[in-house]
């Protein structure tokens, strides 16, 4: 099963997220991650949805999404080069004396320690999903107390302009 990143432009209305999420459940698809936020145009939101499926399933999913009245356009970003980023905050068991050691671990990831407490600290990291997973593996040995991840935000690279014609 392939992973796909779908960009869905929707009306910024109450209940639209429910409609999209309901459609996934109704049609038997799983949402691996979903992010929603504002766009360049007032009144519209963009959802970035990560999901799995073969080409036929994804094609069907995109068509079903497009049937929702509040959906303006649907684009499968995975068909072309795209940029994807995720933000994670990771709370790790550590004393202030371990700060330098942990700095040494997070720095190559261009992550940062954004809070230090008596027995824990918080690491902030942005990047693609694999990068965050890799950092997480390293931090596991210290003891991860809490983890929160945003899910991917994504955008097609500039060489492939996203136009109405490129969408379902």
């Amino acid at each position, binding site marked *: 099963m392939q992973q796909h990143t779908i960009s869905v432009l929707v009306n910024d209305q109450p*209940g639209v997220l429910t409609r999209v999420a309901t459609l996934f459940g*109704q049609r038997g698809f799983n949402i691996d991650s979903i992010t929603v936020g504002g766009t360049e145009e007032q009144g519209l939101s963009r959802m970035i949805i990560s999901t799995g499926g073969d080409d036929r399933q994804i094609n069907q999913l995109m068509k079903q999404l497009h049937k929702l009245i509040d*959906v*303006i356009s649907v684009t499968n970003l995975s068909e072309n080069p795209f940029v994807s980023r995720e933000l994670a905050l990771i709370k790790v068991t550590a004393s202030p004396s371990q700060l330098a050691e942990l700095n040494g671990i997070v720095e190559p990831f261009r992550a940062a320690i954004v809070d230090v407490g008596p027995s824990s600290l918080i690491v902030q990291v942005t990047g693609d999903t694999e990068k965050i997973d890799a950092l997480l593996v390293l931090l596991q040995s210290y003891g991860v107390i809490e983890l929160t991840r945003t899910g991917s935000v994504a955008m097609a690279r500039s060489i492939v302009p996203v136009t109405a014609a490129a969408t379902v």
Partner: protein
Amino acid sequence: MSVEMAELQKKNGIPPIQFGEEVTGAETLLRCLILEEVEYIFGYPGGAVLPIYDSLYGSYFKHILTRHEQGAIHAADGYARATGKPGVCIATSGPGATNLVTGIATAQMDSVPLVCITGNVAQSLIGTDAFQEANITGITIPITKHSYFVRDIRDLPRIVKEAFHIATTGRPGPVLIDIPKDVANEKAPFTYPDKVEIRGYRASLVPSDKEVQEFVKAVSEAKRPVILAGGGIIAAQAEKELRDFAEKTRIPVINTFMGLGGFPGTHELSLAMPGMHGNYTANQALLNADCVIGLGARFDDRITMGRTKEFAPKARIVHVDIDPAELGKNVDTAVTVAGDVKSTLAKAIPLAKACESEAWISQLKEWKEQYPYKYKKDGDVLKPQAVIELLYNSTDGEAIVTTDVGQHQMWTAQYYKFKHPRSFISSGGLGTMGFGFPAAIGAQIAHPDRTVISVVGDGGFQMTNQELAIVSQYNIPVKVAIVNNQCLGMVRQWQELFYDNRYSQIDLTCSPDFVKLAEAYGVKGLRAHTPEEAEAVWAEALAHDGPVVVDFRVAQEENVYPMVASGNTLDQMELGDD
């Protein structure tokens, strides 16, 4: 006000609508409905819709007060299916709204245009679990084409305009408008938009010339082609185009269950219905065709049996549908056209030529003669199939027939040869028991001069028979034909065939005396036990100028054949014991 709207009001004798006049949300709604040319409203009042019902008092609208909200929405559905115009129903908040759910899902599955208006508690109470509060927009998200919760009276005209547009364009479907009580009471100057602009919504899809050329090319190469004509033919009003196309190309036509009447069942090229209870010829045609042309049909699992790889194994599948999501959804296709079937066929007819299909047509004709629908006659025992034949012969196939769900539904689809579109009204997708009788009320209201027959089982009729009050109150001359085998027939058939005759909970012998029940509502009731009695009482029923309930007591252990058992493929048909 636009010139068109002013002319519309004049034409329909509607009282003039003052634009700019300050009116309540309830009055705004009714004015919008007038401007959408709504004539009938099916509904049931309650606390949250009192402002709307107050505005309805003495108004232009003909309101049908059903005895249950499910009756209201099925009646609105029957009205819509019989006319092609959107059906409108109103229910109050909470239980009133949730009582619409089955009807909304029924309409969604069969692509029926409905506008369902529900009241809700005032916005200040939303989310507090207030008395009779239900999140009906949330509940109905998966079963509506779209739904609205009105937060501001100033949005209401636009929302109503959009709702009718969405319900009736593209692939039709139900739209829900939930109006909280404070919005219904609030006042604002009345306006109504001339146009609908919904970004991202593609209301109609006219296929490109290139798509049509590919379609025609694929069809013309076939030697054993068959058209699978679905409900989309009726929704698109493409009956004439289908007939012209089939006759010009010499391609036989299979009507799906939802497509019955979209191509005359009496036509020499008609192969009638395929699938689980379809006929031998239609199923053999699918198994042996080299090209299956799906026109507004969704390749439902009652036709493919869910065995899509074994379905039409020798055929290239060509699929035309207004809903692009249907293309490639259930079966692999060779050629697809995302477009309105009427405009596709209109464009294709001038380009099309006759296929070399005469040998194929002869073969199909031979099968048709060899394997017609048949049943074993048994002296004085009244067979359910004979009842349907009686209904067909007595009306020359000209009646509008509605059904519930079960054996009687399949026998009706088999033995009543539908000649006209919108003459067969039945819950195909959802399979809703209790649908047939209220749907007949809606159809009869839409067509007061036509014979409307509601064929129901003794099970389904008991789910909505309280609407006998409606046919009595408004003297709606629906003829109810109960195919009464004193059990849940289709369940009994499956228990016999697949559960070793273990008849679990199908006994309906303790049903009311349907004749007395009808009479209790002031409706004529008749009963027949034998073929002879059936002819006599049915003639009496047709001659009666008003509603009639006829209780046909039929053989209990009669099964629907042919049958393809669940899990089997179309080549594994049981033809029955005779």
